[in-house]
């Protein structure tokens, strides 16, 4: 990790939906930096603009004020090297698991020109990736033949197949049961450490954020502002056991007190 060379720099960025007098502010005056290979998590109450922040950084929605630089360049259109996954796996029901994972390669250059003639080679790559997240033997199944956790694994593979610089995850484990969720935490931890990809995770699960991230940002109620930047100093590789340690609990507790709400 080289903090002198931040990949993403936001300086006093605001964003609103709509224009003029009817504009609804979603994010206000956010400044943060994401280093190459860093794992950041954004937490906050629901509707606070966490997902908007993700859309903003990926260039899907324009800023209304402030500057947003990725690779030192202002972002004014969708970045081409982002992988995204959401709470809903959004797999295409007419494609098998492996064909779903191949979808980004049919869009991102230079792969889109090559995939027609090199399909077998790409397919092997997708199968390897699926195997690495524990989907061995399910690659030729259709999404509806997979459990929710498996679908989510496949969805994350789809976000990774084109080796994006930034992986953006919007509550990817929100719809899963607690045990499956912890399994996928570990899968994501391993992906991050093996590939050195920069990850932005939007979540409302504080334990998830602290377990996975290098840096946790706490956002306020809408319009979202950064209330706190919290560097998680727990040593890596982290084991699930760490979630029961007092240090871990202290961080979670501190973050929880910032988010407010009725207790």
């Amino acid at each position, binding site marked *: 990790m080289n903090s002198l060379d931040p990949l993403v720099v936001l300086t006093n960025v605001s964003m609103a939906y709509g224009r003029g007098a009817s504009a609804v502010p979603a994010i206000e005056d956010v400044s943060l930096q994401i280093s190459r290979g860093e794992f950041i998590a954004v937490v906050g109450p629901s509707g606070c603009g966490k997902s908007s922040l993700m*859309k903003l950084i*990926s*260039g*899907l929605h324009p800023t209304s004020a402030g500057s947003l630089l990725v690779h030192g360049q202002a972002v004014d259109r*969708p*970045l*081409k090297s*982002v*992988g*995204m*996954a*959401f709470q*809903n796996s*959004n797999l*295409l*029901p*007419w494609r098998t698991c492996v064909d779903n994972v191949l*979808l*980004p390669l*049919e*869009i*991102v*250059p230079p792969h889109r020109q090559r995939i027609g003639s090199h399909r077998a080679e790409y397919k092997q790559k997708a199968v390897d990736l699926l195997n690495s997240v524990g989907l061995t033997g399910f690659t030729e199944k*259709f999404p*509806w*033949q997979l459990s929710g956790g498996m679908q989510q694994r496949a969805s994350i593979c*789809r*976000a990774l197949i*084109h080796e994006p610089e930034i992986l*953006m995850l919007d509550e990817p484990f929100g719809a899963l049961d607690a045990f499956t969720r912890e399994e996928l935490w570990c899968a994501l931890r391993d992906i991050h450490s093996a590939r050195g990809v920069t990850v932005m995770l939007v979540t409302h699960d504080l334990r998830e954020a602290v377990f996975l991230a290098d840096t946790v940002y706490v956002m306020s109620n809408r319009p979202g502002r950064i209330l706190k930047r919290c560097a998680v100093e727990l040593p890596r590789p982290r084991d699930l056991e760490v979630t029961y340690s007092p240090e871990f609990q202290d961080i979670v507790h501190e973050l929880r007190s910032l988010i407010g709400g009725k207790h």
Partner: protein
Amino acid sequence: MTQEDFLTKVVSPTAFTLGLFLFWEAACRLFEIPLTILPAPSVIFDALIQYRVPIIDNAWVTLWTTLVGFALATVGGLLLGIAIGWHKAIYAGVYPLLVGFNSIPKVAVVPVLILWFGLGEIPAIITAFLISFFPIVVNVATGLATTEPELEDVLRALGASKLDIMRKVGIPRSLPYFFGSLKVAITLAFVGAVVSETVGANRGIGKLMLDAQANFQVNIVFAGLLVLAFLGIVLYAVTALIEQRFTGWAFRGQNR
């Protein structure tokens, strides 16, 4: 096919159809309904055999005009549906026009078509087209317009163009809607062709029935109706088969 499948897919429809005809036959005999009001099935089948040559000739004309009109509606409906589903502004702009146009009873358009193209098959083809392309357009446009925004985000974040999103997601996703609408459209096309023939034509089942009616040959009128029903079922079944073949994934998800 399992025994249960056989029961539901073969035995049950056959039994109900036979039952209907038996009930009809019995009612006609029991109440001595005059031939000119409602002929019994046996009389109708007699007429079918006796007049098979003109019936087949005219049914063939109706069938191919229907199919040509339907083919035009399929291509036109698909293209227009994609155009409308492409952008919200086009959707909003064209939709009221389409609804307005669809509200015009097509039987009122046939005289205009005859005026333009003369008696013959062309008015029937055009009527079949006009009446059947609407459900195709609406279904394709709806299928496209309801693509999950998150999925679009996933693709746009990869730098996908609108065309990419259409090709990879929008169009495959709207195929079940498209094929579903074909089942409706094929029966409508058939109605359109026959309506046009009934208003004015020199050949076709509609024309045959009109002539028979003028001569009080009610048995031929009913024979014509029976042929229409039969052709309608066949066309529907073929379309449904094509639908299953192409969009099996949409059904598979529900019958796991």
